[in-house]
């Protein structure tokens, strides 16, 4: 994870009103939080799609948990299960990727090709047939999930198998839920787009990535999700990550440059070389760049002892008004991060720049 790739990710997700990607363990807790995140953040005009979207997310997520041919892994790698939900224009996309044994591909392909070519009444007929068929496989459905996805979206299910070894492939699938009331006329985002994101997320060792509005209301569910997902790591590390995540996300919500009344931003959590990495990116007003840069350079140039002293002095005396003097949050971040706070400013136009930051613990 680097400050520069954060910007690359932002550009890849530029059209997404909200997007969330995830690699890791697929527990029901995570699922509950992800669906909640979208429920809380779906724009009003798409409110009628909420329940459908939740249903599709659950279906897709559970498919991964149920069918992925992945052995036990302690940490995710490039073939780990991947899940993504994104809203672009008036369409929601739910993308899944997981390992599948090559010998199962023909069966899955056949089911997908079948649902992708049937019309509404044929689908209903097939659904009833499968439902009453006694030969339902032990994993809970002879393609019922696929039929439901197509019936609910009235669309197709783009898919792909990417061979990674003689035995296994990555199976990619995208569910597309279009809002019929507010058709934006945009062509659908292709599955290749999601494949590119999955590859980059894996390459950068990112576990979780969220792009969207970082206003106060949006930060809450995000934090709860991260917290829920960290239950199996040590309390010490868990506390530290949560602590700084609060700090960083609240900073974005307070200080980022609003575009169309939204505090757009991106945040990532990754795990690399035995450390957790947090990365964020957001816009900042051009006239605040110098001041922020000065603060970052100032805390980065100090030793931990000096930072401790600054922090303690600040605790009793409160904010100094001198421009360029860092606040408690930055001092705290600088003294706790392994190494220093990495940052980058990329000028977008004369009004604002893109500011990205990474820290690790």
């Amino acid at each position, binding site marked *: 994870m680097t400050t520069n790739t954060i910007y690359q990710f932002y550009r890849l997700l530029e059209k997404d009103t909200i997007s969330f990607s995830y690699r890791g363990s697929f527990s029901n807790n995570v699922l509950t939080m992800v669906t909640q995140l979208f429920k809380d953040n779906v724009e009003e005009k798409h409110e009628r799609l909420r329940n459908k979207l939740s249903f599709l997310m659950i279906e897709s997520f559970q498919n991964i948990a149920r069918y992925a041919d992945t052995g036990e892994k302690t940490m995710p790698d490039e073939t780990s299960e991947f899940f993504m939900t994104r809203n672009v224009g008036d369409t929601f996309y739910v993308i899944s990727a997981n390992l599948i044994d090559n010998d199962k591909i023909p069966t899955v392909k056949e089911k997908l090709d079948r649902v992708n070519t049937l019309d509404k009444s044929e689908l209903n007929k097939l659904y009833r047939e499968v439902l009453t068929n006694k030969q339902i496989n032990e994993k809970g459905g002879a393609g019922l999930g696929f039929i439901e996805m197509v019936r609910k979206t009235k669309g197709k299910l783009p898919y792909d198998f990417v061979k990674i070894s003689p035995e296994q492939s990555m199976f990619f699938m995208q569910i597309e839920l279009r809002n019929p009331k507010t058709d934006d006329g945009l062509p659908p985002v292709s599955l290749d787009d999601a494949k590119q994101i999955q590859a980059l997320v894996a390459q950068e060792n990112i576990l979780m990535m969220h792009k969207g509005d970082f206003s106060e209301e949006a930060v809450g569910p995000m934090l*709860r999700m991260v917290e829920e997902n960290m239950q199996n790591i040590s*309390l010490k590390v868990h*506390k530290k990550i949560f*602590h700084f995540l609060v*700090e960083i996300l609240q900073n974005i919500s307070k200080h980022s440059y609003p575009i169309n009344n939204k505090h757009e931003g991106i945040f990532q959590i990754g795990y690399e070389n035995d450390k957790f990495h947090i990365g964020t990116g957001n816009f900042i007003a051009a006239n605040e760049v110098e001041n922020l840069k000065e603060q970052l350079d100032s805390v980065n140039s100090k030793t931990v002892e000096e930072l401790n002293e600054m922090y*303690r002095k600040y*605790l*009793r005396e409160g904010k100094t008004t001198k421009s360029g003097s860092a*606040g408690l949050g930055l001092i705290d971040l600088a003294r706790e991060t392994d190494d220093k706070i990495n940052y980058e400013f990329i000028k977008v136009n004369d009004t604002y720049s893109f500011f990205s930051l990474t820290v690790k613990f």
Partner: protein
Amino acid sequence: MAEPINLERTKNSPEIILDKENAIFKISGRSIVEDPKEFYTPVYNWLEEYVKAPLDRTNFIIDLEYFNSSSARQIMELIMLLEKIPETGNKVKVSWLYEEGDEMSRERGDEIKMVSKLDFEIKEYPSEDY
């Protein structure tokens, strides 16, 4: 006597009980509100009155699993108010509680103890999971 303060815990803000009659002074939970100044102002105002005529002994309990840096400032403001109690000839102690294994909370407590001028104890309690 001022009405007690009794704030319920929320997802982002702590439970706060300030009750002179029953001698309970306690902040617990998490404090990650975005505008702690606004949140803590009524608490500060209550305590500002209290320290003028405190009980013989005040045991102020702080049991916070998380607090953001702007909350840290506000909590320090409260502690600095408590520092006025000894001037009235009465006793005051801060008890900083943290869950077993929560090094971060302990370190934060140590740090606040270092900058405060109060009798300040730091106490671990067993993890709820066991």
